[in-house]
């Protein structure tokens, strides 16, 4: 299995999580992976190898942009920022996610019968 395929499995979800993370504050790649892990209470182990290609992909689509900043520990790091297009994308993906997860929940919560 090639690396590209491996990242493909999580692609949609990973992108949504990254968008969400960046909507809170600009963050560098390592920070994004840590933040997702924290926010999901360690449920999601972000596949770090897939993160960077995903960032590039999202950048190419214009959802995020990047700039070099100095971290609180006085180190240079590439920070990613959400663009306006990224915010729209987050909203629409979020809506889609909510609808589909609600639907999945309803399917899972189904007790039988034809109400």
């Amino acid at each position: 299995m090639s690396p590209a395929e491996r990242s493909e499995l999580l692609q949609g979800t990973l992108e949504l999580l990254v968008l969400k993370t960046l909507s809170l504050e600009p963050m560098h790649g390592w920070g994004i992976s840590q933040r997702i892990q924290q926010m999901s209470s360690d449920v999601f182990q972000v596949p770090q190898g897939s993160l960077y290609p995903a960032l590039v992909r999202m950048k190419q689509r214009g959802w995020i942009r990047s700039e070099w900043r100095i971290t609180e520990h006085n180190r240079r790091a590439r920070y990613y920022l959400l663009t306006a297009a990224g915010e729209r994308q987050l909203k629409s993906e979020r809506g889609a996610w909510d609808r589909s997860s609600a639907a999945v929940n309803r399917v899972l919560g189904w007790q039988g019968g034809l109400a």
Partner: protein
Amino acid sequence: MSIWSEVLERMRSLVQRRREERELADEVAFHLMMETQKNEAAGLSAQEARRVARLRLGGEEQVKQDVRRQRGFLWLDHAVRDVEHAWRTMVRGPVVAVVVILSLGVGIGVNTAIFSWIQAVVFRPLPGVRAANGFYFIEPRSVAEAAQGSGGHGGALRSTRVMDPGNYVGVSWLEYNDLRERLSAIRDAVAFRAAVLNVGAAESARRTYAQLVSGNFFLELELKPAGGRFFLPEEVAAGSSAPVVVISHGFWQTQLGGSASAVGSILRVNDRELTIVGIAPRNFQGTVLALDFDLWVPATLAPTLLGSRELAERRARDYAMLARLRAGTTAAQAQAELNTAMKELAQRYPATNANVQADLLSFWQAPRGPQKFLARALVVLQSVLLLLLVAVCANTANLVLARASARQREIAVRQALGASRARIIALLLTENLLMAVLGALLGAGIAAWGTNALRDVPFIDAFPIRFQTDLDGISLLFAMMLGLLCGLAAGIAPALQLARGDRQLALRTSTRSIERSRMRGKLMAVEVAVALVVLMAAGLFLQSFGETRDTDPGFQRKGVLLAAYDFSERESSALSAREFMAALLERLRAQAGVQSAAIARSVPLDIHGLPVRSFTLEGHARADAAPDLALRNTVTPGYFQTMGIPILTGQDFADLSDVTSAPQVIVNQEFVREYLGAGEPLGRRIRTDGQSYQIVAVVRNSLYDSFGERPKPIIYYSLRDRPAGGGEIHLRTVVGSELALAASVRGIVRTLDPSIVLYDVRTLEQHVDKNLFLRRVPARMFVVLGPLLLVLAAIGIYAVVAFAVSRRTAEIGLRLAVGASPREVVLQIMRETLRVVSYGALAGWLVAFLVYIHVAVGRPLDPRILFGVPALLLSVASIACWIPARRAARIDPTIALNSD
């Protein structure tokens, strides 16, 4: 988000690749650092923390690669990087790169130069004519001899004779018109023949090369006049009262000063007034390859201008016929029609056409003239040069292999870091291709120079030769293709071998490998073999050229002055032709310094050839009623003495003033052999043109049309019996003082008749040289190529030895340290190298020898070529080997032992 902005973003990142590459590295490094710190904080040792961090990321290179793949068009990205890397490698080892680029450049350059010539000769044979390749020659072929033997016209017979120039007899004007009517598979055909016309007033006439052409000539060639117009139908009708001429662009510029009023003005040609109706396009130079004609005159003017009966004479096969196929028809169809038409003509005109067939030949297959010579020579040359390029490729492969062996470790490291085999091969190939492309660029430059240099080779002055060869897009494409092919050919083997290599082994061991040095040895041997074959071929070529120069033509070419005169067009002359000749010869013979003098209608080894005419031999009945054919020349008594052709039996022609003797002919040995057999030749009678002639002498064979021809039968007629108003004066004098006689000859002619122009004054030797001029082109090329090849072989050997020695520095140091003398070291290196070189030389020599005995049948083997060339090559090889070996032997042992 449109696809375009995404593409744009990708392109941008491609452009800023270098910066992004750095940033990516920083980003990944930052990530690893943070992850490592986190792991350390969790209690792991520094080393372990780092390892786990890496593990989680999934490998730095892997991530980078994934990002790159996402970011750009990966292959393009790779390609750019490979080229950069290749450039850096090249710059780091400039000597190898320079050698490779130079040798490839030279190899590609000479090939491209010849290719551009082949293109001009084969693909664009008619400058200025767009559809030149569509044209076919329609060439009648006499099959009298073949029919005698088998009685049939079998296909096998034809195919074996098809390239025999002796049998192509030319087209007569009437035949041209007959065929034009009968062939529906071709578009209208054109006919033309060369003629030399005198332009200007009689006293200052200039000899000008002209083509007598059919009326549709310009129309069918689809030419557009540079000024004026071409012929009108009424102007080309026989007996037209409005004689016209079309002039070349060059003639217009040089002779008429490019005057705007040139069209419509009168040009005096052979004492007739012709109206200039048009100017041919600038590029157009006529329909004979390389010859530059200045005038085009309707053939229907031939009787007026030349007083010739060629328009009504089926025996006068002086024309060539060119035709294009009609759309939708094939050459095979046209040939079938041609066969039918020729059969019909044979039945209708048995006297002239009984055993004449015809072939449809592509322009480059022209059975005579410059096309034939040049096309063949160029094809031979191109094959030799491609062989040379193979040698260069072997050379390059060798150098690349030598250098790449040194990089085995680098490659192993790359492989260990996860580079795929394909990537490694691509990387190595890129280096070769980069060098090959640079070589091709250099080659294109050399070709541009070479093409022009060859074109400017000074041929005979006063002979209108013009080559319009140019380095065009196709030639450049050819150069590039050669370059890429060379790059691949020279690179693929080493690249495969290296990529296949065992990386574990390579990482651990030193770089020397026996297998690889064997491969290098093989390539070196191949190179030497090829170089030897080409060198020996060059030697053969030069030898045959030299032989041609030294061949005994059967007459003595030194010490003869030639001068032409022609008053045949004039209706009234103070003297009859016979009286004029007698008076002229009498005065010439009285001239101091003249040993003998004669007049002849034709000079042998003329670029236009001697006419072939039919005759019947009395008492020699032919089964098939086919005419016997022989060359014809018409001469005065004293001709054989002047030319130095021995009369074997019988006596020279009767004196011009003799009115009692019967008409006489003299034949050559070949004539006797072919037509008379063992019978007594003297006294036999020949009939031709309704007249009977008696054979009075047999002379020795000599050359008539070209060097290397088989002996041909010839009949010499006497100008006493067939007087003519034009001829070539032949004067024998002391060798070296020929041209000193020119002034007195002019004076003598002037006193006889001031209106007669003497032209084309030259020595017989100069005349013969004209015939050789086309052979000079390839001979000249070989003179240049031979040394070049030697240098290439030397460079190859030098580079290989130098490299091998440098790889063995430690070993040599050790030998020196344990007491070997530098001399012994040098000898050992040379022994090893020269052994391989000798294997190659032996193989090449065997091939060359086989070719040689095949080509040079019946000729003495020339030891200079058989042994001298290999000896030369081996000495050069020894020097090329000795220089780096000696340098190696001077190494300071302590330095040597510490290296590697």
